[in-house]
């Protein structure tokens, strides 16, 4: 349980990190909070030649409101977002979700962008980014691009990020008046990865439901107003479309059941006036 040898360099600015990525590409890995990466390295599931440590960059740790979105920089920790005094007004979904994200001690160091870049299909923050129609800012040595979350997650632990790109920030659109939010999760132990997690966003016109832990990446559906059995039917269709598989934790049928049940509960929570 010790990592294989690697070179290490600290990068305190976006320019320095991107220059190193341009030089080393896929041989290098960005180290932010390290709460996924260090475990992966300790188990030798990855053996990069170089770690580029951005965890001490003050400029990348910013969390700020810009153009109606909350932008969270690459080295901002989950705890920094969780303890942000205005978070409940800005992104009411997230205070519902944070208690489910691992443990206090992990959130203290784990980053928001790191969780998104790692793209574990059971992770909560990628799910929230998708549910809230968020986007990612990908920066390379020369130039940057902004991708919607829907295009960023491409499969199990896979994203549209190129080897020389840094996930510089993620952007969550701020909550609008009239929107309601719901979240439900089932896991084997408190703080474990979700067997199934559902986030719901409801307003007067539509309903948006995202599911994590079932398919190879978080998936989302948007429907016009649905109620009663029409909602049950839509959730059932969604559950089957996720192509759930049996695994050591739970059967595919149980996962579909969770999508239907937790889906219903999350939607009801999202429709309950605060």
């Amino acid at each position: 349980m010790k990592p294989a040898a690697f070179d290490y360099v600290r990068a305190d600015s976006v320019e320095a990190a991107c220059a190193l990525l341009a030089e080393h590409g896929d041989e290098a890995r960005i180290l932010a909070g390290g709460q996924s990466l260090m475990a992966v390295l300790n188990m030798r599931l990855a053996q990069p030649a170089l770690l580029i440590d951005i965890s001490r960059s003050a400029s990348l740790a910013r969390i700020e409101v810009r153009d109606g979105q909350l932008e969270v920089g690459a080295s901002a920790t989950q705890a920094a977002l969780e303890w942000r005094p205005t978070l409940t007004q800005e992104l009411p979904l997230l205070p519902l979700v944070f208690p489910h994200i691992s443990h206090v001690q992990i959130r203290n160091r784990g980053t928001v962008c790191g969780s998104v870049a790692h793209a574990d299909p059971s992770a909560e923050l990628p799910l929230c980014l998708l549910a809230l129609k968020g986007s990612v800012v990908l920066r390379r040595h020369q130039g940057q691009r902004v991708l919607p979350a829907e295009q960023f997650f491409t499969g199990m632990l896979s994203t549209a990020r190129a080897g020389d790109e840094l996930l510089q920030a993620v952007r969550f659109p701020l909550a609008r008046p009239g929107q309601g939010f719901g979240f439900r999760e089932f896991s084997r132990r408190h703080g474990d990865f979700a067997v199934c997690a559902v986030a719901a966003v409801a307003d007067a016109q539509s309903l948006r439901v995202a599911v994590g832990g079932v398919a190879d990446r978080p998936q989302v559906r948007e429907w016009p107003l649905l109620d009663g059995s029409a909602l049950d039917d839509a959730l059932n269709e969604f559950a089957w479309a996720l192509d759930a598989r049996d695994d050591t934790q739970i059967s595919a049928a149980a996962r579909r059941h969770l999508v239907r049940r937790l889906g219903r509960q999350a939607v009801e929570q999202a429709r309950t006036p605060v």
Partner: protein
Amino acid sequence: MTHPTLSRTQLHPVTIELNGRTRQGHSAPRMLLSDYLRHELGLTGTHVGCEHGVCGACTVRLDGVACRSCLTLAVQADGRRVDTVEGLAGEDGVLSELQAAFKRHHALQCGFCTTGILMSSADWLERLRAQGRRPTEQEVRDMLSGHLCRCTGYTPIVSALMEVAHA
């Protein structure tokens, strides 16, 4: 400011402010902070359990914030403050408020998980105190979910923490 690349084949000086005293040792880039504390500096109060962040035994405070020393590299701690269980009691050996409460409530048996729990709890209680908040039992249990204890069943640990938090 640009930083030099630290080669994997060499040892690099790492200086930390450990429990209020400056300590220096050497580390290869791949060395974990937990191993640096135990093997390089000889402080074995920080325990190593799972080495992938799950058990919580290795929790220390890095610049005041509780985190897993098994998921942190020693070179990442260079120039920073690290607090471990050895720093909790006073110079005279008098237990801290938290440690004394653990003793009173029998909140430990084998003690393997205890050092990590103490470091987590110290940070967490300080942060709540700064906000003028007193945690509920559910919140205490929530924080403790980041630590595995196979002896106590957690009940006496919760009691000790509730007593300190509501003192």
